[in-house]
């Protein structure tokens, strides 16, 4: 803005760039939202079956939802929903604690086993998870967790047990929190535990939210471990397993639209969670240390 003559073209250029950026974002958003839109359309579709010749349904109905929650004799969706919710809440609490605890230790505490642990964790993550799937089942069986209501406990353990390994992202975040804050607290006589709970954790909302979201989602979307652990115990099926079942050959014609309805239903709690937690991303860490 040295010369007044250039001011207008610069502003115009900025306006054009902004327009272009927003159009691009809008187009991309449509692409990203398209499958979601399609699921919602399908969930209200009147015609049965998985294929159709037109994009928009010919008739609309809410019977798919009613069927999902009332026809509980073949596939008991409400029970699956409760099962998954219990498992997801418990495993997300445990996992988040594990991840934060390990990340803090890796980022801030100095002890003998630190570097070896980081290397071991990195190595462990390289093994494909299914490789040990069958072994996990037998271990749970040996612990007496493979039958009846204990299946829920088994699934919680499966989803949260090894969570401590997933510390890299949170550690990277903790590393960016200035150490000056910790040192100031130590001078005031705080213990390391207090620094962890009173300084690091409150400053780490974005990464905590990230951890909570990812660990909460795991039980909703996993059907492979659930299939191995639940086997034929349909009473303890999770939502993912139930929805997967709806797409099997003997159910798909009757249940495809109900499957879409079910997908909409399970996405709602997760979507709500996103809305609530979005604001943590906006402010982030800026302003943790002023001056």
């Amino acid at each position, binding site marked *: 803005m040295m010369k007044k003559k250039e001011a207008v073209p610069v502003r115009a250029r900025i306006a054009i760039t902004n327009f272009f*950026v*927003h159009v*691009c*974002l809008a187009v991309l958003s449509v692409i*990203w*939202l398209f*499958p*979601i839109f399609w699921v919602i359309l*399908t969930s209200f579709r009147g015609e049965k079956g998985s*294929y*159709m*010749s037109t*994009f928009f349904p010919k008739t609309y109905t809410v019977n798919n939802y009613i069927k999902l929650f009332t026809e509980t004799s073949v596939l008991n969706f409400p029970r699956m929903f409760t099962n998954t919710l219990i498992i997801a809440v418990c495993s997300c609490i445990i996992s988040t604690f*594990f991840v934060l*605890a*390990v990340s803090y*230790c890796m*980022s801030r*505490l100095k002890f003998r086993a630190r570097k070896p*642990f980081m290397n071991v964790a990195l190595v*462990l993550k*390289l*093994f*494909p998870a*299914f*490789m*040990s799937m*069958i*072994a996990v089942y037998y*271990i749970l069986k040996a612990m007496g967790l493979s039958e009846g209501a204990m299946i829920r406990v088994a699934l919680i*353990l499966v989803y*949260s*047990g*090894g969570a*401590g390994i997933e510390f*890299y*992202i949170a*550690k*990277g*975040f903790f*590393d*960016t929190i*200035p150490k000056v804050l910790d040192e100031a607290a130590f001078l005031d006589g705080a213990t*390391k*535990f207090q620094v*962890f709970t009173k300084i690091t954790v409150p400053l780490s909302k974005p990464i905590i939210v990230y951890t909570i979201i990812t660990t909460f*989602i795991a039980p909703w979307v996993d*059907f*492979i471990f659930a299939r191995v652990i639940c086997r034929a115990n349909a009473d303890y099926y999770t939502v993912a397993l139930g*929805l*997967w079942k709806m797409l099997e050959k003997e159910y798909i014609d009757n249940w495809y639209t109900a499957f879409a309805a079910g*997908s909409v239903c399970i*996405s709602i709690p*997760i979507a709500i969670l*996103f809305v609530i937690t*979005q604001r943590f*991303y906006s402010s*982030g*860490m*800026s302003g943790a240390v002023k001056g």
Partner: protein
Amino acid sequence: MGKRKKRVNEFASPYTIGNAVKKGDLITKLSMLFMGAGNIAHGQIVKGFLFLIIEINYILFMFQNGLHNLEMLPSLGTQAQQEIWNEKKGIYEYIAGDNSLLILLYGVLTLSITAGFVLLWVASLRSAYKAEVLSKTGKHISSFKDDIKDLFNQNLHILLMTPPVMGILLFTILPLIFMITMAFTNYSKYDDHLVLFDWVGLANFAKVLSFHDSIGQTFWSVLAWTIIWAIFATGLNYVLGMILAIVINRKDTKLKGLWRFCFVLSIAIPQFVSLLIMRTMLQPEGAVNTMLKNIGLIDTALPFFTNTMWARVTVIVINLWIGIPYTLMQVTGILQNIPGELYESARVDGANVFDIFFKITLPYMLFVTTPYLIMQFTGNVNNFNVIYLLSQGHPTPVGSTAGKTDLLITWLYKLTIDQQYFNLGAVIGIMTFTVLAIIAIVTYRNTGSYKDEEGFQ
């Protein structure tokens, strides 16, 4: 006494087992046999008894089950289930045979418990020696209360790390060891070895790695595709996701929250739902082909999952739909962590958008997210969902166990779950690991965030 070693490394301690054995007094040496004796003698009653109780439990376990488990391990059981005709009742009666799988599992379990016990034994001996030295030099021996207090300060890592590490041991490491041992057996449906199986050494590895065996040839082609897939999936997701995040993060972009929400919403839909829906949409008679035909752009259906090249491009493109929001979520938090002063001073110096991106944003992001990138790469090599739900590995040549879009991981799944070649599955798991380990360790050790964790402080 009181002689201190010069500190060679940061964590060296004078209370080693060597010193305990050489210089310890009678009580300390007694602790080798009765764990906790030294602690009890020097007033650390609770700690001492805890050690003792653990020792008693271990010995009881070993005599009840452990020794038997170890004894069976070399043979993996020999007794097959037998069927005997019972004349009186007129029925067949079954005599339970050995189950090699359980023998192997319990054997591995016993070995792990023993390893854990040895570690505790070392800890107890060192603790006993430390108590002895402290009492001789007249220093304060920490009481149980002090120990608890220390857990919240100097020893916070023990408090925080123990539960997660126990979880990792039980649900990650132990099963892994168990499965690795399986690679050295003939546990498969081939020759009916599903109940009783034996150790076969490296035979399975030879089979998978050979160029002449059909399994071996499949392995090499699947491996090549897996690596191509991982490079494309990781690189494109990272670069495009970061550009998107930066565009949304721009000062002049309006409705930041809305855009982020639109993209992140796709994560809210479980992957298997969106992928299965895309699969139905991309079928020959699915929504996409129907629409294109209606518009008149094509006459015959596009071969999304029937032509090798089409299938491969399709899975990579659809993986972008899955992956970019994750990159966006991950990167946004860190982008906001870049100190604003860096940008301001760059702007004052007259840097343009590209300068700022290449000189400030990208180095900072690479610094913080290299571990994340490596994890993405390994995650993609092990990306089961996208392949299995989308293309199921198809197109599959006749007679092959793996399709053209199968990754090592989906092939592993097919081999173990569908076809019950558990031993070959385990070998492929180990090979996957080997490939990843080489790539990851080399790159990870050369990154800034490993060498210099405080570089950006």
